[in-house]
């Protein structure tokens, strides 16, 4: 009950943040305008539409997740609202979980809104471009990717300032999207490069696996078993997020507010 109460309050608070609403409106506007920019690319207009839509959802989702994640705990401390919450019979883990779930619900609502517009635009554009399972999966995988990123932002927010947290989370997202690069560097001859690449490759989350736009843009690329691949990535996101939240709780449990 306590965790859900904090999550509900966080969701309601986040949905009233102007910056997040502006990001959502801009993203929805860009997706809605997708059909009119197809002529700018020599590719087939449907490919441009799908590519643009998923890219906009990813970028807007990324900004919304980072902005929500880095602020959710520092804002409570800065506004001193945390005093009236933690002085009540609230365990610190309930506070962290509530804040995470509230932030996650915010990201879900925003990605869902963008996703509905995206799928609607695709369906409206041409009957031949009917909404496919891959497109729905593409939007869903963006959400799970953001769940993992949000857990990371919450973890950093238990000890880092919002500015440091922003750059840390963003940098990890970028490096985590280049897993093929870090993997290739693990066989580098330079031992320092090899060590760094190995550490980065195995410790940082592999965000690249969540991007399935390529499959939509290049239908000729196929996965041997897409259901298993997607399921594995979802489980990976949940386990990795759980570990990050556990670490966040351990740090926050000893933090003075």
């Amino acid at each position: 009950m306590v965790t859900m109460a904090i999550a509900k309050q966080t969701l309601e608070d986040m949905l009233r943040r102007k910056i997040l609403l502006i990001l959502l409106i801009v993203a929805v506007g860009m997706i809605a305008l997708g059909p009119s920019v197809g002529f700018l690319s020599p590719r087939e207009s449907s490919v441009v539409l799908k590519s643009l839509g998923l890219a906009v959802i990813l970028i807007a989702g990324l900004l919304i997740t980072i902005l929500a994640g880095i602020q959710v705990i520092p804002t409570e401390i800065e506004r001193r609202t945390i005093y009236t919450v933690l002085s009540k019979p609230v365990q610190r883990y309930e506070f962290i979980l509530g804040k995470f779930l509230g932030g996650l619900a915010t990201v879900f609502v925003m990605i869902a809104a963008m996703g509905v517009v995206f799928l609607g635009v695709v369906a409206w554009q041409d009957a031949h471009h009917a909404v496919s399972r891959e497109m729905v999966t593409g939007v869903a995988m963006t959400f799970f990717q953001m769940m993992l990123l949000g857990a990371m932002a919450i973890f950093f927010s238990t000890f880092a300032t919002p500015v440091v947290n922003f750059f840390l989370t963003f940098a990890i997202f970028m490096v985590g999207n280049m897993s093929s690069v870090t993997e290739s560097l693990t066989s580098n001859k330079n031992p320092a490069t090899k060590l760094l690449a190995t550490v980065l490759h195995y410790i940082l989350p592999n965000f690249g696996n969540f991007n399935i736009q390529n499959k939509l843009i290049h239908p000729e690329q196929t996965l041997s078993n897409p259901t298993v691949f997607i399921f594995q990535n979802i489980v990976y996101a949940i386990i990795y997020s759980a570990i990050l939240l556990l670490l966040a709780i351990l740090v926050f449990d000893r933090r003075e507010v």
Partner: protein
Amino acid sequence: MAAAVSIQGLTKKYLDVWNKAEIVAVDHLNLEVEEGEIFGFLGRNGAGKTTTIKMLLGLIFPTEGTATVLGRPLGDIEAKAEVSYLPEEAYFYETMSGWDILDFYARLFRIGEPERSKRVQKVLEDVYLDPKAWRRPLRGYSKGMRQRIGIAQALINDPKLLFLDEPTSGLDPIARAELRDVIHNVGKQGKTVFLSSHQLSDVELLCDRISIIHGGRLLALGKISELTAGEKVEIQAEGITNGTVDKIKSLKLEVLQTDGHIRIPAAEANQVSSVIDLVRGAKGTVTAVIPHRRTLEDVFVETVRKAGGDVSAADVKGGEN
């Protein structure tokens, strides 16, 4: 009577950014607050009052010492269920309405419906918040209305013990008087109130016992009537020479002279006859003998000054009603 709050040797030290210099915010504090009393916790800005309260609530952790709240160790969840806290200059979620904020806090106490709605309505009525404002977002509230929400959230769980940090600070006289009534009513219900305040007139009206801390150390503790005991007497006279004034000063009394008149603002009761004898012996006239009761402000200022602290107007707000 059992102790609602028991503090033994509570100490909080902070290190500076270089981890070298040590700042002692609370220094081996010993204190007992009895159940059912309204206890005044006084001190200058930075004396360690808020730090002490935050340690008692488990928001920060002591460096040394122990304490119990309602017989339980610091940070205990079961104790927190029976405790409430109004922070100094409390902020609440601006976009939520007064009703929604109290509903949220009631959920944190695991109070289910329909009891939750009943409690929210009752505390809003208890703090005299205009019903028209109940469903309006907090960003449109005045400071006094926000403070009422602060008190209301501190009452939502029907607590046994309330920690109130400067509850009447910055309020207009009417709002202060109303909030004083609320705190007084809370005390009449047998609840314990731990009241940290600069408003000495409020403390004097509300509290049974007080403590004064300075530099994190306890300087005075006791009933207000005991601490303010010992009247001072003001004596006014005229027609005496400088020699007589010197004799009066030799009694270690402050003497103020203007146009042949003298005023001794604070003589002890047992010094009055000596001063009168000296004036009469010099063929002077005693024009007035006025007894003055010591105020809490006098006690506070004397106590802090004795401990080496300067007291500014910001530290003491005694008579602004």
